[in-house]
């Protein structure tokens, strides 16, 4: 197992647009193995993007299987050159980031997305994601474009929406 050091903000690499992967070779596979190990080692991490370990190419891990409570998911995904092709709905959720320790904040993301990417062998793949998994993918793909969740924060006080009633009679 090889862990890579996590790049922490304000390191400028986190604000840099990453280059597409051109070659699906052994070097890529070695790097992804390290990235998976680093993600698994991150406290509570459900995803990671290559620039978070200083590798400036468009690669990320999305792993909703590691959610605290079970959520719909497509397993542990390795996404190379991912691209979101459709967005639907809005949902607010609480996010944190391995590159921004000790802070969490509210971010609005699309509730459902479609994305296409390549796997480690260079085969085209596509997914329809919703909820928590879609949130992870949007957070990680943002990293590939030099965007942090800090760039998308909304107020903590003003979030009176999208919840289920705790009492049946409040549902009227």
């Amino acid at each position: 197992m090889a862990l890579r050091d996590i790049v922490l903000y304000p390191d400028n690499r986190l604000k840099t647009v990453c280059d597409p992967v051109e070659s699906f070779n052994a070097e890529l596979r070695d790097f992804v193995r390290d990235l998976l190990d680093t993600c698994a080692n991150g406290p509570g991490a459900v995803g990671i993007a290559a620039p978070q370990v200083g590798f400036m190419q468009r690669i990320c891990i999305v792993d909703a299987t590691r959610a605290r409570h079970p959520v719909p998911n497509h397993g542990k995904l390795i996404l190379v050159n991912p691209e979101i092709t459709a967005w639907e709905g809005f949902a607010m959720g609480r996010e944190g980031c391995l590159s921004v320790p000790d802070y969490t904040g509210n971010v609005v993301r699309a509730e459902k997305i479609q994305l296409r990417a390549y796997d480690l062998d260079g085969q085209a793949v596509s997914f329809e994601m919703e909820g928590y998994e879609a949130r992870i993918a949007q957070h990680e793909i943002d990293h590939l474009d030099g965007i942090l969740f800090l760039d998308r924060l909304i107020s903590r006080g003003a979030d009176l929406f999208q919840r289920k009633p705790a009492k049946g009679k409040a549902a009227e």
Partner: protein
Amino acid sequence: MNTPHWKLLTLVGPDRPGIVAAVSRVLLGAGAELGEASMMRLGGLFTIMLMVGIEGDGVHLKGLLESVRNEFKLRVHVDELNAGLHRRIDPDVLITVYGADRAGIVAEVTDALARAGLSITDLRSDVAGSEDKPIYIMNIEGVAQQGLPPLEQALANLSSDIRVTLSPIELMRG
């Protein structure tokens, strides 16, 4: 950041522009570091609760702020802390409460939540609506120390005029 002398500074005074700037300028000039803060207007007053990292004791800090205190008619209180920054606890549940304003909403709701194991990390409330028909609105974040079911049960038994929603906060860290 290795300043060990963190203090919690509380300032309250009539709201007017420039309080935050004046206070932070004085603290900057004294070499202080600023940490987490909560600042808001409440009932025509402006309130500041601010973590300040500075050498010396609370008397020293109050002394530095004397001219600002006079200029803005502030009341000043300092708590000296053993702890420092970064004592964040991530809440796992969000509870929103609203209803026609009346005495006892906060007591009823928070008592029920406390009995069901909620440790509150953040509570914000507002009175909205018209003067003759005020509405009370409260957002509570906290840690459900016994899980969500006891909280849901506790909320279901509240008075019928109190509207409550509960939603888990599923932190996404990536």
